[in-house]
């Protein structure tokens, strides 16, 4: 079967995933601050105003109406909690936590309620909700709008966490997340929204918990997350000019983790660099390193290297922010240390 593809942006791919799932399943609803925008303002009641602060959910309200595309007050605890309650009673809500940095005001509802209900209730409850949230530095948005923080969520039993790096993966993973019966954190990197790529029409699913080899290579494995996949690919391209062939593994899912993908790549290359934009302490990168030493020790011919953000908040000034974000140069330097 030939499936038609078009070039879509990461933003459009996410929008399309939401649209297709809302068409397919009337229990899917969208809620969050300004996801339509302008609620009750008469002249935009039908088409919405913003469609999210960066336009990701634009025009969904005109197809699905205000009953299913719900602008919320700036009450993350209330509406994230309402998503939990709606999920446990039969809807499939997709809630938008505008920036992941805002988790502090609603964390109880995510990790004490949404993540733990099923377990505490002895398996009687299902919480099929998705929390879409923006991550990442590079926008000059400073300390409270630029973090990644996905490691916090990957740490929590009961939650799944995915972080797509391409439009194709964004669409397929979001559809999977909406159909999943567990609560899924869906991390969208704000610097990727305008990135374009081939995206098939119609619906398709990328299984949660499956990594993707974005580039084949035999000399070193570079495991990367979200936007860092592109940094890793750029580094790999430059290394290739020097005869070093890196294999780039896009984790895609942070919880569960595709351990096999990491370990089998490591078995092939025997060297590992992890690139992660999150803070390093207790991070996904550190977890991958632990996995390598625990289950892949015999494969390792060199120490595992981590290329991460520093252990600081995200700074504001461009010079500082550029220093904060891992670069291809830092990845190359790390690779050169062990190859």
């Amino acid at each position, binding site marked *: 079967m030939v499936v038609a593809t078009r070039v879509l942006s990461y933003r459009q791919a996410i929008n399309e995933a939401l649209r297709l799932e809302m068409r397919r399943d009337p229990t899917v609803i969208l809620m969050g601050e300004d996801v339509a925008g302008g609620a009750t303002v008469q002249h935009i009641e039908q088409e919405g105003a913003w469609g999210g602060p960066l336009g990701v959910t634009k025009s969904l309200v005109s197809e699905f109406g205000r009953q299913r595309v719900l602008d919320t007050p700036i*009450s993350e605890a209330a509406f994230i909690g309402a998503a*939990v309650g709606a999920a446990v009673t039969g809807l499939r809500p997709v809630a938008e936590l505008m920036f992941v940095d805002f988790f502090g005001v609603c964390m109880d509802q995510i990790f004490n309620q949404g993540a733990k209900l099923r377990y505490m209730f002895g398996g009687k409850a299902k919480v099929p909700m998705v929390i879409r949230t923006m991550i990442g530095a590079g926008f000059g948005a400073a300390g409270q709008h630029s973090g990644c923080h996905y490691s916090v969520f990957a740490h929590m039993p009961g939650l799944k966490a995915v972080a797509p790096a391409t439009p194709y993966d964004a669409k397929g993973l979001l559809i999977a997340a909406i159909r999943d019966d*567990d609560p899924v954190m869906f991390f969208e990197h704000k610097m990727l929204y305008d990135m374009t790529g081939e995206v098939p029409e119609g619906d398709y699913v990328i299984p949660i918990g499956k990594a993707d080899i974005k580039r084949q290579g035999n000399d070193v494995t570079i495991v990367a997350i979200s936007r860092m996949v592109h940094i890793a690919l750029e580094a790999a391209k430059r290394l290739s000019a020097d005869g070093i062939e890196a294999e780039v593994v896009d984790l895609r899912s942070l919880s569960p983790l595709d351990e096999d993908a990491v370990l089998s790549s490591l078995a092939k290359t025997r060297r590992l660099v992890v690139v992660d934009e999150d803070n390093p302490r207790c991070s996904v990168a550190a977890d991958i390193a632990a996995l390598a030493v625990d289950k892949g020790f015999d494969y390792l011919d060199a120490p595992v290297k981590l290329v991460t953000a520093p252990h600081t908040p995200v700074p504001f000034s461009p010079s500082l922010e550029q220093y904060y974000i891992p670069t291809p140069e830092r990845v190359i330097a790390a690779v050169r240390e062990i190859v």
Partner: protein
Amino acid sequence: MEIPRERLRWIYERMALIRAFEDRVAQEFAAGKLPGFVHLYAGEEAIAVGVCAHLTDRDYITSTHRGHGHCIAKGVDVKAMMAELFGKATGVCKGKGGSMHIADVDKGMLGANGIVGGGPPIACGAGLMAKTLGTDQVAVCFFGDGAAEQGTTHEAMNLAAIWKLPVVFVCENNLYAESTPWTYHCAAPDIASRAAAYDMPGILVDGTDVFAVYEAAGEAIARARRGEGPTLLECRAFRYYGHFQGDAVSYRTPEEEAAYRQRDPIQRFRQTVLSQGLLSEDELDAIDTTVQHEINEAVRFAESSPLPPPEDCLTDVYVSYPVEQLAFRH
């Protein structure tokens, strides 16, 4: 307000069952048979029962850390509840929740909650489900005077009001948040009036009088079912035990506690129905006997049930997840 005879019997049976359950749990806890800790509902029975009398299994409630009464009023099986408190495999949550997370989604009981103020947003979600799917289900959010000071409670009342959700907020004001008097922790100790800030009716109800609760809750729930939006009921009552079992209750005087007992909800019910000739003394006593039997059976069931196999620790975390990633690495 007409209350059919069968419903009167149900009201009494449920209140008596809650009381007997809690008194027995206090004993079993004191005897060291229960792990963890428990918060008992005795004294507040009229609220849970007066409210839940208007609900079906399809309606939802969210509860508090003091949730046994809500469970029983909502029809959760008492044997499975007792087994849960004993940490047994036959518990309603398979021994994974315990007293503080006791729940039965099939009965519309969305869980006791260890987080004060954890429930109100979830109740909004259940209400949102009903509104989105166009059903006539309602969600009742029980919360205490302590939770009245949580941001989630205020946010949830606001959300329920702007979306006109079928949610009834029932504040069980038992005068103390743990050991702290509500007159201290409330800047304006008048929780019912807070409804005005969220454009919903706010009323004060005698939470020791099941007929008052029944009538007020009936109106509020009917209003919610009609799609007219949320209501806040502040029900004042007293908890007979401490905040948790083991609490020395040094913040209340014996006189104060004696005054509470003067307004005992179960005795008040008896007086009313007997003086009105609605139910007979023999009938009520027979219910008491049945209830005692049921509690004895529940304890026997709990005691004779097995503990969950240790490796069950790993199940029920997710609907689907690689098992090897849930287990210890070594």
